[in-house]
Structures are given as structure tokens and as C-alpha cells.
């Protein structure tokens, strides 16, 4: 199992049946492939619709029906189309149960950086800043480090996407939850110790007294 799959499988466990969610491109979207039996989520797409039932992309290439990544998508019975202002009204209005996004950096204050690396071409902001301030729960799904560089920091060093909004971090090695303003290590991958996580993590965190093993 590669890192992406481990993370996606663990993310999938966070969903409850009927959750209304918006998922970033990559691992977050991949997580829907691993939804537990009987769990369906409703996928919101920034460009103006939501789907009931599992997402079906590329199956019916209706030129007017894409998702926010530009893939052709079927919006099933019970789904709805709406305009961009309603779409972001839903986002900012707190209607999303969860959003799952990737990150360049996260820090112990819940700050998130995922849109801009100084000195590189910025692809853009898209809907990310709105999602992170709007969703009830913000889950960051990412590899624990990037080419050996730590990504879970005391303080983000690159421009922020949002301040203090991250609720949970899921990597291939660990699960952190933000509680009372600080990070708490809740789970580690089988065979990985809290000390090993400390080596790979710059942020201060406490270890939950019921530290669990990630079950994937």
C-alpha cells in the first residue's frame, strides 16, 4: 500500500453516512474509493452542484457537466445545480460538514499554507480559502514530510491560506487532532512510535493517553 492509499483509506473513515463534503484534488478525492460499506457522502463541487451517491466521472461526457477539477461528471437524481454565488454561500455559510484538502505546511496553531510557494509560479487560490474558513471541520490529508522537509511546523513559513482553521491532520504515519488550541497525536501507523513522529514533526504536540494504531 503506498502513502497515498494509506492516507486516503484513513480519511475515508472520517465520513459519516450523509456527510456533505468538499474534497480537494488528489488524495482527498481518492478517499471516496474507500468509503466504508453503507456510508455515502454528498459531494459538493465549487463550480455549482452537488451529487448524491458516489461520484461518477468520465462516464457520460456532457460538455455542460464538469466538477471543480474539470472532469466530466454525472450529477445524479437528487443532486442540484446552482450558480457560483450560491455555491460559495453554501461553503461560507457553514453547510459543509467536512472539507479535506492537501497542504504544503500546517502548524500547531491550526494555520494552513497550501496555495503559494514564494519564488514559484502561483497556480492560484481557487476556492480553497473559502472552504477552509467555511467548513465545519477541516481535515488536512498529506504526506508527513516532503522530500525530507518537515511539513507540520511550529509556525508556517510560507503564505497562509487561513488562520487557525485546521481541525485534523492525517498523514501516512500519524493522525493529529487540534484540541484546546494545540495538536494531539491520536494515532500512529502500525509499528511507528510517538518518538518517531516527533522526529518527523517540528510542531509541538501532546500524545493522547489512548494513543491508537491506525487501522487501514
Amino acid at each position, binding site marked *: 500500500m503506498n502513502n497515498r492509499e494509506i492516507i486516503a483509506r484513513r480519511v475515508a473513515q472520517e465520513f459519516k453516512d450523509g456527510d456533505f463534503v468538499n474534497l480537494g484534488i488528489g488524495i482527498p478525492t481518492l478517499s471516496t474509493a474507500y468509503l466504508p460499506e453503507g456510508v455515502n457522502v454528498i459531494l459538493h463541487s465549487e463550480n455549482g452542484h452537488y451529487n448524491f451517491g458516489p461520484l461518477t466521472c468520465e462516464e457520460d461526457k456532457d460538455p*455542460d457537466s464538469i466538477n471543480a477539477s474539470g472532469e466530466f461528471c454525472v450529477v445524479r437524481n437528487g443532486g442540484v445545480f446552482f450558480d457560483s454565488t450560491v455555491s*460559495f454561500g453554501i461553503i461560507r455559510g457553514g453547510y459543509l460538514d467536512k472539507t479535506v484538502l492537501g497542504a504544503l505546511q500546517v502548524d500547531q496553531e491550526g494555520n494552513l499554507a497550501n496555495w503559494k510557494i514564494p519564488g514559484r509560479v502561483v497556480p*492560484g487560490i481557487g476556492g480553497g480559502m473559502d472552504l477552509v474558513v467555511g467548513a465545519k471541520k477541516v481535515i488536512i490529508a498529506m504526506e508527513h514530510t516532503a522530500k525530507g522537509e518537515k511539513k507540520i511546523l511550529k509556525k508556517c513559513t510560507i503564505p497562509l491560506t487561513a488562520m487557525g482553521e485546521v481541525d485534523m491532520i492525517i498523514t501516512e504515519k500519524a493522525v493529529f487532532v487540534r484540541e484546546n488550541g494545540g495538536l494531539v497525536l491520536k494515532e500512529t501507523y502500525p509499528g511507528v512510535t510517538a518518538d518517531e513522529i516527533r522526529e518527523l514533526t517540528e510542531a509541538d504536540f501532546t500524545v493522547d493517553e489512548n494513543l491508537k494504531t491506525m487501522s487501514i
Partner: protein
Amino acid sequence: MAKIISIKEAMDMIHDGMSIMVAGFLAVGTPEKLIDALVEKNTKDHTLIAISTAYPNKGSGKLVVNKQIKKAIVSHIGTNPEAGRQYINNELEIEFVPQGTLVERIRCGGFGMGGFLTPTGVGTEIEEGKQRITVDGKDYLLEKHLRADVAFIRAHKADKNGNLTYRKAARNSNMVMATAADITFVVADEIVEVGDLDQDEIMTPGIFVDYLVQV
């Protein structure tokens, strides 16, 4: 209300330096024929207001590739490498706006409001130069309205009074951009008679539409 004109008549109203809203999300909902005609006309120094710069060969991106855009007010350029290239070479100015903020600024522009308060961007670079206002203990940024000289709209059906409907995800920024430009051009998949659209199902009232462009 709306007048039916040719694509040439539409292009005659567009001049160098005008700001142009191009509706669409990754080119879905963009009136490609207006874009193609504007590429051919080759006017310069436009400010582009769009959700993104789309693709090099599709949507608003074609105007970027043809170097007609001086400044782009967008939420994303990642799908158009040429926009990125022009941006790092200082050939193209870009104002990045969070997508939800962008469409709401346009709505304010269309609906006579000066701006609105959003939690989006508080504590980020987006806050620079903006007023932070606290309401009921929560911090918001004051974001200002946005209008354009012209808007390019793609509808599904248009009746001859300019009443519009959109289809599926092609609606996106079309509804809001149709309200916020001095001249609104609409290309519809189909132009129908007045009375053919259900009065309850019209998405954009014709009062917002200046011209239905026959392509």
C-alpha cells in the same frame, strides 16, 4: 430590453483597454465564439475578470495566449501555463482573488452594493490593504465591488426579451456576470420566442441583458 445583433456588431463595441468579464468555469459556460471573434479582432490591454484563465486553447485563456490581456482578476491560472509564463515575465499582471470573494464582489457590482464582509482571507496576504471589521466577535475583510465594461455570457436558452436559462454546471459565473457589466453580450444555444420560457424558470431576467449575439 435585449437586441439581437450579429457578432460583428458586437465586436464593433469593444475597444482596446476595456475590462471584460468572461463567464465560465474551466471554459464550461464560456461563449467560445465571442472569444474567437475577439481574438480575431485582436484588441489589446484588456482587463480580464474571470474565475480562471482556463486553458490555452479554450475559454478566456485564448485571450491570454494572444496577449490581449494586460491584467487578469482571477482565482486561478494553474490550467493555463502561458498565463503563468507571462505572469513571471511581468507581461501579465494578476490579481488573485479567492473564488467565493470574486463572484460576490461581482454580485455587489451588479446589485449596487459597495462591497461585503467575508471571513475568507483573514490573516493571509489577501488581507493586505483591506479593512478588517469585527461583527459579533468574528473578523471579516471588507471586499469591494467589481464591475466591467463588457460581459461575455453563454446561456442555454434566451427569449427575445433577453430572459435566460442555463444548463447544468454551465451556469457558474454566468448569472452573476450578466448583472455587472455596462454592456452584456449573450450567446445562447437557442433563441426562442417570448413566452416560450416558463416565467418561474428564467434564471437571468432580461433586464440585465443588452444584446443577444447571433453566431
